[in-house]
């Protein structure tokens, strides 16, 4: 199989990132995922397929249903996850500092 998708390209798409967000908390069926979007089932299914090809999502058969869940190993392998975490806190702390500076000047 020569289909080697670029994982970075895969996660650069906002819809695919949103899908990653959804399944980060729990395994979901394709239809359950699609319900969260206004795009067509077909479009979402295409996005899921791309994420699965990159092994960011992994399939799990549960009875008749196929569930998709996150493959954390793959995610860890494709990006430095500390940076978004750091950015999250940096943003928070920047806000804290701004809020307190304002508070300080009002005193």
């Amino acid at each position, binding site marked *: 199989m020569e289909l080697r998708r670029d994982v970075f390209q895969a996660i650069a798409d906002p819809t695919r990132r949103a899908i990653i967000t959804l399944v980060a*908390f729990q395994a979901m069926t394709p239809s359950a995922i699609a319900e969260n979007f206004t795009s067509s089932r077909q479009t979402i299914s295409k996005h899921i397929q791309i994420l699965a090809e990159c092994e960011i999502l992994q399939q799990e058969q549960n009875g008749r249903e196929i569930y998709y869940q996150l493959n954390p190993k793959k995610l860890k392998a494709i990006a430095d996850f500390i940076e978004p975490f750091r950015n999250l806190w940096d943003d928070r702390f920047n806000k804290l500092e701004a809020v*307190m500076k304002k508070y*300080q000047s009002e005193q």
Partner: protein
Amino acid sequence: MERKTKIHAEEGKQELFITREFDLPVELLFRAYIDPEIVEQWMGTRVLKLENKKHGSWQFETSDAQGNVVFQSGGAFHDIVPNQKIIRTFEMDNTPFAAQLEFLEFEKLMNGTSKLTMHIIFKSVADRDQLLQLPFAQGINMAHNRLEEVVMHLK
């Protein structure tokens, strides 16, 4: 002064450190953690409960632009020493993540500046690594929420 947030997470350990220096006196930095109105401003969350005392508890709630609760968290205070430290637990409701233990140290630095060190201990290495991965997803959520807000104002 380097005013950048630093994360120190050693491979294979179930703890991490977050450090940050602030251009604020330590008293104000500490106040940002104990005053509910101020916490709401910088955390972007609703403070349901914030009992700043030993054996007290806290509870935050975050809603989206439509007012739906998207995120609830809470925990207990183990110890609070004004302008010095807060020891508390942190747990996100309705997620598979176990409670974590947080040691917050507030330090006075020169010329009205201060430093915060958060030492967070997780149930397992896997728990920690999973949480480190989460903001990637959460950040997107927040961006969406912000976008929604902006759009709402345009209407």
